[in-house]
């Protein structure tokens, strides 16, 4: 098994992190929408939805920081398209490297400045301390606004990113999608 990237493609570390982050990111958006807009404001389920959202959000912060470090030390595979989309992809990928980190930090700021002072007990295992900020209703409102717009804005960018991946796969058929898939699928899809 190849862990590291090379000029042609991604190693298992990049692939594993990408899909783990993709799944948790999408789950975080769904949880965020459910807890703030679908579930009743005061309910046992809502309380736990918030706690899971915080736990998985911080896990995502950790995974995304790990990926950022990995991308910085790793070879970047060459773009396979050969047309103008390489620049767009480069910009989007750079944004998507930082976005989950910024969103999660904004979320962490919400819970840190909230006058409710609800502890973050990640996965009911680890107490994650609040950031040393001054709590207040106004600060909480502002942090929520930043968190919300970053999250939904990024969801739109991710939708574009997914659409682009599907176009590479089904329109241009250039192998961009397959080289991000788990290795077994890659060999099955490519030359066998």
């Amino acid at each position, binding site marked *: 098994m190849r862990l590291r990237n090379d000029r042609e493609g991604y190693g298992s570390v990049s692939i594993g992190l990408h899909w783990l982050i993709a799944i948790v990111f999408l789950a975080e958006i769904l949880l965020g929408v459910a807890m703030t807009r679908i579930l009743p*404001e*005061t*309910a*046992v389920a*809502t*309380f736990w939805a918030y*706690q899971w959202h915080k736990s998985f959000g911080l896990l995502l912060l950790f995974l995304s920081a790990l990926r950022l470090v990995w991308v910085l030390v790793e070879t970047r595979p060459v773009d396979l398209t050969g047309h103008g989309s390489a620049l767009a992809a480069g910009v989007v990928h750079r944004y998507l490297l930082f976005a989950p980190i910024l969103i999660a930090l904004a979320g962490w700021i919400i819970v840190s400045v909230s*006058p*409710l*002072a*609800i*502890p973050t*007990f990640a996965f*009911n295992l680890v*107490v994650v*301390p609040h950031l040393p900020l001054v709590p207040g209703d106004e600060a909480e409102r502002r942090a929520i606004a930043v968190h919300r717009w970053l999250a939904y804005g990024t969801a739109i960018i991710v939708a574009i990113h997914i659409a682009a991946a599907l176009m590479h796969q089904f329109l241009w058929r250039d192998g961009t999608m397959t080289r991000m898939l788990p290795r077994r699928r890659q060999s099955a899809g490519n030359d066998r």
Partner: protein
Amino acid sequence: MRAWVIGAMAVAGATLYGPTAVSPSFAITLEEAAGSYRVADNSQIRFSVDQVGGGGIAGQFATFTGTLQLNAADPSRSVVVFDLYPESVSTGQQRIDDFLRSAAVFDTAHYDVVSFRSIDVRLTGPDTAVVHGIVTARGKSAEADFDVALTGEGPGSLQFRVTGDIMRSPFGMEVGTPIYSNVVRFDMQLETMRR
């Protein structure tokens, strides 16, 4: 015979009687103190719930009623009745108050009273007693003990400090554990007036 009284109440409360005890601050005999009292509105019903990492939620209940029957012949058969209205909860945070009133915790729309009915009173010292009884909340009942200490007396009045730990889970109110402790700590200052 000079007897020393202490009584108590609230979501706890009681009385006690130590025939040989000497408690220089409270020179009231049980015979003098015996009778029926009601809990006055200026009593303080405070509670707190610890949270992981330190701190917690603290608040009080503003609306409650209660009576205390101090039995001179047998203080252990004194009776405490206390009702508190969870709608009146306040923690200083509207959102937390709303959550506590909601179906997730007290469900005040369906259960407007949390009650305590004493079963017996055990003297533990010259000024102290344990009141054992039943707490009922959200249609569920569980036994509970409250520690009572006589803290003052005046003409027609007795003051008590009442403390006790109540588990939330027997009442289906354990939402938030283990982030928030299952234990609610009550610390009450009761002003009782002779009826």
